[in-house]
């Protein structure tokens, strides 16, 4: 078996695995960056609306009598691409205000209610529902009681699909990856070739019984004595065989 083969296996496998990890991680990091920016945008809009509504509640106005809210909701939808609609829900889940007129007075779908029930304290809840992404947060009054909910309904296209950057980055990385694998292969072939050549040369020196003395590979340290003993043994055995043949001829 050529020495280059196992060394190539090591070099190429590790290079390929590492490059796959590197390229895939880069794609995911970019996606996370996009998600992070989208979350920042949505988070700001939600917090801004939440503050506006809670300031009005602090003035003593009930949630279902905040008429200027509708105009703010419409402006917000107009200023944010990908935002389909915003709804303000009462504590029972009925839509009190919505940029989608048809939703007014309607109860929320069970999937939304489930997401509300499972939300982590102090964090927005989120659910994917009928080609949309719905993100909501609670509206709290001055006593920390939940007075209702704000929900933002986004087009699902604003949610980056997992892995959507990967094909592009993989394509871009392909020539470099090929170059890297080729470099690893060359490294392994050179290294394996040197190791193989080294031991083949030692074998030739052992065959010729020349050049096995002095410093060198530790493998040959025992060889001078072995060669000397072999040669001596060969001579002694030859002498023994000669003697035995003489005896044999005498019988």
């Amino acid at each position, binding site marked *: *078996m050529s020495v280059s083969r*196992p060394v190539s296996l090591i070099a190429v496998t590790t290079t390929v695995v590492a490059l796959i990890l*590197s390229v895939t991680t880069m794609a995911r990091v970019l996606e996370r960056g996009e998600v992070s920016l989208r979350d920042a945008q949505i988070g700001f809009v939600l917090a801004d609306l939440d503050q506006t509504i809670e300031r009005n509640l602090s003035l003593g106005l009930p949630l279902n009598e905040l008429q200027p809210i509708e105009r703010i909701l419409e402006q917000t939808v107009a200023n944010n691409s990908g935002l389909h609609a915003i709804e303000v829900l009462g504590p029972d889940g009925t839509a009190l205000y919505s940029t989608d007129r048809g939703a007014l007075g309607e109860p929320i779908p069970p999937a939304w209610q489930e997401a509300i029930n499972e939300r982590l304290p102090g964090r927005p809840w989120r659910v994917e529902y009928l080609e949309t992404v719905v993100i909501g947060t609670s509206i709290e009054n001055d006593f920390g009681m939940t007075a209702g909910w704000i929900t933002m309904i986004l087009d699902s296209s604003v949610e980056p699909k997992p892995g959507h950057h990967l094909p592009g980055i993989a394509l871009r990385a392909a020539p470099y990856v090929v170059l890297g694998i080729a470099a690893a292969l060359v490294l392994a072939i050179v290294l394996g070739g040197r190791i193989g050549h080294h*031991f083949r040369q030692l*074998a030739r020196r052992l065959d010729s019984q020349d050049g096995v003395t002095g410093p060198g590979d530790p493998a040959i340290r025992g*060889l001078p004595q072995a060669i000397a003993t*072999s040669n001596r043994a060969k001579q002694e055995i030859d002498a023994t065989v000669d003697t035995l043949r003489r005896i044999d001829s005498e019988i």
Partner: protein
Amino acid sequence: MAVHLSGSDRSTRAAAAFGFAVALIVAAVGALMLTTGDRLDRSGLRFASDEVVGTIGHSIGGLVSRAVELGIPLADLYGVDGYLQGVIAANPEVDGIAITDADGKALFQQTRRAGVAFDATVTVPIRRGDTVVGQIAIDPSYGVATMVRLRLVAAALAASLFAGLLAGLWYRIYRLELIDLPRARFVASSRAVGRGGFADYTPPPEDSPLRPLGRAAVRLIVPVRRQARNAAALADEIRAIDVTKTFSGRVDAALQPLAAYRFDHLRQPVRRHGWGGWMALPVFALVEAARPLVAGFAADRIGTDPLTEVAIGLALSGDALGRLIGVLAAYAIALWLPRAGVVLGLLVAAAGTAATFTIHETLPFAAARIAVGFGLWLSAWSLLARTGGLARRPWQGALLLVALWGIGPILGGLVAEILGRRTGFLALGGAIAALSAVCLLQPYRPTSRTVFAWRPAAASDILAPLIAVLAVTAWLEVHLSGHVMRDNYAGMALQFGLAATAMTLPWLVPTRLPATAGAALAVAAVWLAVLTPAPAFLVSPIAGLGLGLVWAALASRTYSLPAATGMTLGLLGAGALGGASFWTGADPLTLTAGIATAALAALAANALISKRLPRSAPGHTATGEGS
């Protein structure tokens, strides 16, 4: 004759150079990707950042427009500076906001940092009816784009360190099994021939580069053996027909010179299969791959800030507790059921890791970590007890430690970045379970039963690994993973990679420093982080180097029960001190640095005292240090 042993310095240096070359290749590919053509970190992220900032501008513009429509002049708006400052503080993507009049003169302006130039790239008009009366100008920070750039670099570097360590380790195992050990056997055989022993020649394995040399050796000794067989056959023939024993004296005399040689075959062939434990190595590495995720995951189970320390402490302490129980269980069953111990331990670790996918609370997570710690150490110590491989060959042990502490966590960090943390746990658990089956098929040659003996150990055998593991865990896991880099898995992969790379360095030099020096270096790294704003990429390698020095100094004693206990207690201590900071109010890293320094002082005092006392155990090293 150390040159013939498995710890050949030449192979160690060759493996390091090979790993370095592979790491350079992977790093070069990463650098080419990040610097040529359209830069990845700018693709769409700056546009998206401008959109976020535009949303903020529209919100402020709407608010100001409503005030202006009520008749308040733009220049006379009240409380604007405080409001703008609040918006900047709440939105990292904004570095500065200005409100200008229609002529562009700034009426109000706030920036994140005083003295930094205001460079507005996003503007939103302020309208009263259809008339533009001013504009909101915003200076974006592009913080996410910067963060993405740093993470891309971290991912590329972590992948290159992963490749370098994996290639170096794998190549070292290749050289160990197919060059170093066959060479040692070849030298032993050639010396045996030199002494006249033509019988016990062991040829190198088929796939060893030494095979041609082995064939040459065969060509040297086979004619001798053939001639010896001829002589023996001839002598037998003469004896058979010499019924009167007339020639027996002369035959014996002729054969006399050959009495100095041995030509008979070995009754049992020498077994040359590699160490079965190598197959367990990738599985152990996968179990430890979750390390960069544990503290952060534990911290995120708790919403309240001070309690996060308790959650992290419970997870790490649970892991350590599991390990202690695992060692005891291995002690109880490994000698009778070694293979079962290895596989059962790995399956328990796989279940604990994968189960994390479904866990949402602190205590169940701590329980899962107990299972993982228990499974890993039951498995590892069952393997050790059965084969004695690591205790007998420290180099193999060094490779195991690098795989556990370096390659595994880098892989775990990158997997978490790709799949997400929760799914990452599931994927790792599945991979561990799948690979555990491979371990079941491996031969585990019993070679030693002494590994569990609690021999009289020097204090440094226990305390040095304890202190070093305490320092490294507190820095990498409690501080970085639990707090600073909780969601930055690529960054965590890089930090673990830097520490692991530094861990390997002590094996590349012939000199061995005392274990105490290594522990002191690891503690110094923590102090460096506490007292100075030293960057993490400087602290992690120093801490890793300290731990590597301890392992290199203890050598085979690293795989003895005292050192294992020390390492486990170090992990337990890191978790406990993290939790204790909840009650003391002290910073966990500072608390750890203080306690570790006190332990270090105790260790130094013990070394001084033991030097003055007469040695009670002849032949036992008082300090227990050195290789």
